[in-house]
């Protein structure tokens, strides 16, 4: 009995181990004419995709392989958190993927450490025939440039706009706010007890938006000085906090659950987030179709937002960089960029795709509004996070200050001053 079990275990093990060994390489068997001009030897590239279910990346594989018969793609779907963890480990000593989806907020650290390949030489300065500078908006290009290198191809972009419950606005006769005072008025008229609040988020994504809207920045232009405790910044965060103080905002901490719950049960009637959230609302809250609209987030001195998104990058340790570049370039073709919207509900980063009619549709969920044009407008004035090695420390310090302010542990000035001191110390090293 014992021996039989061992024996069968051995067989199973043998079968399984014989199929292990990393990527399955299917040799390119075709003798078909090669359409593109790269070398003819069969090549396999590994692509890591964190998009999840509604991914615009996976559908690219088959047509790409048809166009480039000698390139085989080993596709791995890995969630966002795990991708970051693995990148950290793999880049330091392993077999990195050849193409990986990276969040723009990861770029500062990896760029400063030279982790990603420079796409300029790989692409001969052109993305599908046009110079990089013309393919993206100014903000978009800035987001992917580091030390005159282009370290990833911006694939989808993320900027914030105001989502609001239009049905409640109409019901209560509230005007859509365009500046801070109007926002306070609208929020006061909107809230009812525990319901219909503006969502307050104690993080750098949202905090920075308020600062930009008041003409401030997080770091000085040369990235040597921390300035998120400047008078403009303090004024901005004070106003942000006043929403909490006046009980018209809800501090959306993690234990409140997912925002979509708050959206559905009415705790949240206004919030600031990016275009990808439109897709989430449609799939998770279909019953609220028609109730919501988007608008440019109310500002004080100028519109502002953080600029993020997803880029496609090639780790420097990849030994198939040319083939990897071909895949990225394919992903950036107009049709495929438009599919970023169609399949994932995210905003394509390519300028041409942004202004295409297929993306700029009237959205029935948002009452027939051309929701995308709002985000486009926001992108004009959106600013990416500064690309310094110590970004993580600066981000942590700022976030901590926001939390302290939300918990009323410290005054806005004190919290930001302390955080600025901590961040400056890190920056100076």
């Amino acid at each position: 009995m014992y021996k039989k079990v061992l024996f069968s275990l051995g067989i199973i093990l043998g079968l399984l181990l014989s199929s292990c060994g990393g990527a399955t390489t299917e040799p390119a068997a075709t003798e078909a004419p090669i359409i593109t001009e790269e070398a003819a030897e069969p090549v396999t590239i590994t692509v890591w995709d964190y998009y999840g279910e509604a991914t615009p990346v996976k559908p690219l594989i088959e047509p790409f392989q048809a166009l480039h018969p000698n390139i085989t793609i080993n596709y791995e779907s890995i969630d966002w958190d795990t991708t970051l963890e693995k990148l950290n480990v793999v880049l330091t000593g392993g077999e990195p993927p050849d193409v990986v989806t990276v969040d723009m907020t990861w770029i500062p650290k990896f760029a400063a450490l030279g982790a990603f390949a420079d796409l300029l030489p790989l692409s001969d300065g052109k993305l599908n025939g046009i110079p990089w500078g013309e393919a993206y908006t100014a903000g978009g290009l800035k987001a992917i440039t580091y030390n005159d290198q282009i370290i990833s191809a911006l694939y989808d972009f993320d900027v914030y706009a105001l989502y609001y419950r239009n049905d409640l606005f109409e019901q209560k006769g509230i005007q859509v706010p365009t500046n801070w005072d109007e926002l306070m008025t609208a929020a006061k008229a909107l809230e009812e007890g525990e319901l219909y609040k503006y969502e307050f988020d104690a993080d750098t994504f949202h905090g920075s938006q308020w600062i930009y809207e008041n003409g401030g920045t997080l770091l000085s232009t040369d990235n040597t000085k921390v300035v998120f405790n400047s008078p403009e910044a303090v004024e901005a965060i004070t106003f942000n906090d006043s929403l909490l103080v006046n009980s018209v905002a809800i501090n959306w901490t993690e234990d409140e659950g997912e925002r979509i719950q708050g959206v559905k049960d009415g705790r949240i009637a206004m919030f600031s987030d990016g275009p990808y959230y439109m897709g989430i609302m449609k799939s998770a809250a279909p019953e609220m179709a028609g109730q919501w609209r988007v608008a440019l987030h109310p500002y004080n001195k100028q519109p502002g937002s953080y600029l993020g998104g997803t880029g496609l990058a090639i780790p420097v340790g990849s030994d198939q960089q040319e083939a990897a570049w071909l895949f990225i370039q394919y992903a950036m073709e107009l049709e495929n960029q438009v599919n970023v919207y169609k399949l994932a509900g995210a905003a394509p980063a390519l300028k041409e795709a942004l202004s295409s009619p297929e993306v700029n549709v009237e959205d029935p969920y948002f009452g027939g509004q051309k929701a995308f044009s709002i985000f486009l407008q926001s992108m004009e004035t959106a600013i990416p996070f500064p690309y310094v090695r110590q970004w993580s420390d600066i981000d942590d310090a700022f976030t901590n200050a926001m939390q302290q302010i939300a918990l009323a542990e410290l005054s806005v000035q004190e919290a930001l001053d302390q955080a600025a001191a901590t961040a400056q110390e890190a920056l100076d090293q």
Partner: protein
Amino acid sequence: MTVIQHSRKLTYSIQKYGISYLFISVPLLSLIVFLFIPMIVSLWWSLNDYSGLTAAKFVGLNNYIKLLTDDKIFAKSLLNTTLFVLLGMSIGPTLGLLTAMMLNQKVRFSSLFRTAYYLPVMTSLVVVSTIWLMLYNRNGLFNVVLQEFGLPKVGWLSNPDIALISIVFASVWQGFGFETVVFLAALQSIPRELYEAAMMDGAGAWAQFRYITLPALRPVILFVYIIGIIGSYQVFDQIFVMSSGGPVYSTSTIVYYLFDKFMDLRLGYASAIAYILFAILVIFSYLQMRISRERA
């Protein structure tokens, strides 16, 4: 000795001890390759400024000095972890002892009760943390029950004053069953005659506990505390799943901070954190051994 005499001695030693070394060879080799070498590598890294991607820069003891003198978050993490250990190791073994004593009263279905206490121990900390994260939700079971009693909702994980305690609860729930089982076995091995004799001498319940039960449990208590402290000081999974060290670092622990630094590719700094923890645990274990030896 001559060369021949030396080599004869050597072959004799090899024959005599060869088997022993053979028995431990594979495990030892495995441990050397997969445990000791990484440990030595990270010890070396702790003396460097290293990102894993760029060249390492030797900085000597700078990482350690900075951690111990100029890192507020590390200090907070150290404090939080110590608090976590103190709370957990006060409540856990106490609950374990109480439940063990209850079960020792010859109750029916005792194995059923024992299972109830022990089941969480078989569940991974990640699973436990996921379940408790849901329970601690603003609108989760605990708050709803509080509301039934007319009490206000609690920010179990969003209130910095209680977040750590909330995590202690979940951890104790998961772990005290281990102590229950261990203490129960120890209690059952105490001879009844001792208690009977004490009763006949007129000793009350408390005296019996103090002079018979506790002394008999001493070795087990020591075992529980050594294992418990070493383990609790390394608390990570619960923080990772439930709170990410916040809010405002109120739940940041040593290993979580270490992990965070690793994820920021500050490998040298993170390694230094690990070895400070190592030093703390070595000192603790040594002290515990000394205390137990003195008392014996």
